[in-house]
């Protein structure tokens, strides 16, 4: 998928995340669609494109978020890289891989975000946040992983044959 499509697509995802998604609360948390999308793409295309999608998606989220500047960008780059690593694993064809990858990617995303919040002077309740936010959020994203991964794979089949940046 070319950058001309990736940039508006990820900005649209970020807008969706700030407008509609917060109303879809389950267990007190709502899905992290940018994490789901970036992790799915990283799984399909590897570390390099995963990181680029993380960079663009993170910048879009940072623009609309109250997080310290760059927090979402760094967190989503980590998600892209981590899921890109899973692409090279021996289980890459296994159906459970997207679920596990996105579960772990969500934890990584939230932990990096909390770390940046802590460094920037915000009050961080590590254990409470881990139990009440991070884990439920990871489980919810993991449950949504097959649906989002399947959608992204269809998108990849349609637009994804081009190398990024062409």
């Amino acid at each position, binding site marked *: 998928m070319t950058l001309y499509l990736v940039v508006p697509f990820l900005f649209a995802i970020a807008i969706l995340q700030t407008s509609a998604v917060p109303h879809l609360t389950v267990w007190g948390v709502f899905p992290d669609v940018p994490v789901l999308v970036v992790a799915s793409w990283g799984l399909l295309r590897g570390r390099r494109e995963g990181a680029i999608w993380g960079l663009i998606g993170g910048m879009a989220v940072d623009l609309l978020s109250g997080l310290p500047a760059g927090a979402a960008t760094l967190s989503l780059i980590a998600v892209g890289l981590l899921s890109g690593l899973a692409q090279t694993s021996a289980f890459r064809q296994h159906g459970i891989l997207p679920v596990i990858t996105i579960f772990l990617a969500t934890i990584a995303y939230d932990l990096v975000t909390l770390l940046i919040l802590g460094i920037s002077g915000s*009050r961080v309740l590590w254990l409470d946040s881990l139990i009440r936010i991070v884990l439920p959020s990871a489980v919810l994203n993991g449950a949504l992983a097959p649906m989002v991964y399947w959608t992204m794979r269809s998108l990849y089949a349609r637009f994804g044959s081009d190398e990024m940046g062409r």
Partner: protein
Amino acid sequence: MSRERLRTLLPFLVFALALAGFVTHRIGWLAPVESFLLRVTVPVQEGTSFVVRQLGDLAQTARDLRGLRQRNEELQAENARLLLEIVRLKEVEHEAVVLRDLLNFARAQPSYDIEGAHVVGRVIGSDPSNLQRYILLDIGREDGIARNMPVITDRGLVGRISEVGTGWSRVLLIIDVSSSVNALTQSTRASGLVQGEPDGSVIIRDIPQSDTISVGDTVFTSGLGGNLPRQLLIGQITGVERKDYDLYQQASVEPTVDFGRLEEVMVITGFAPIEEPQNSELGQ
């Protein structure tokens, strides 16, 4: 009789025949013939009339059908328009109720110079992260909004402006973990710090053990620190947690504002916070 002579006499013959017919008709000699002919022709006439009438009705029905179809389309369009109008009016009614409540609240609090009695900030977005609790408003610097201004609804305190742009502003909600507000319970005047929890719930902590707090008591802003006006409603105490070995006790608070359904809020523009928070936007 030659043909020429017959042609000359024909009008007279026709006239004579007509006259004879008239006379015989008048004196009743033709009645049986007429009766027979009528008996034969009446059913034919009736059948013809029936067919013609049916054809006429059919044509009328076709004309009516065309008209009805057109009328039906018009009514369907009208129905759709009215449905949209109902939806729009219901939204207007809902907005009017909210604005009336806000206006009544503003009138009841004349000491606050409230931005929103005329220009109400509309909530246009939430924070994309589960780890933070912000909302985005459609009013900003050009509407007189500045950082740290208190944000309220008629139900109570929502939060404070944490960031301002030209036509937008971001509000840190009191349910965020980095928010802390000096507060007071209404009946016992116990003071503490209202803070958000990671799951979006709210507690009041740092209440001295000697102070009495009870379930159902109302929690207000105390105005201590000068970052928020006094007596803004925060919520109601729903549970008390007291440990003998602790210096302080804490209680869970149910906010009066429904943060999941925020649509319109007001910004108190006439209140100037005394000190700028250091570590967190809402810290006092």
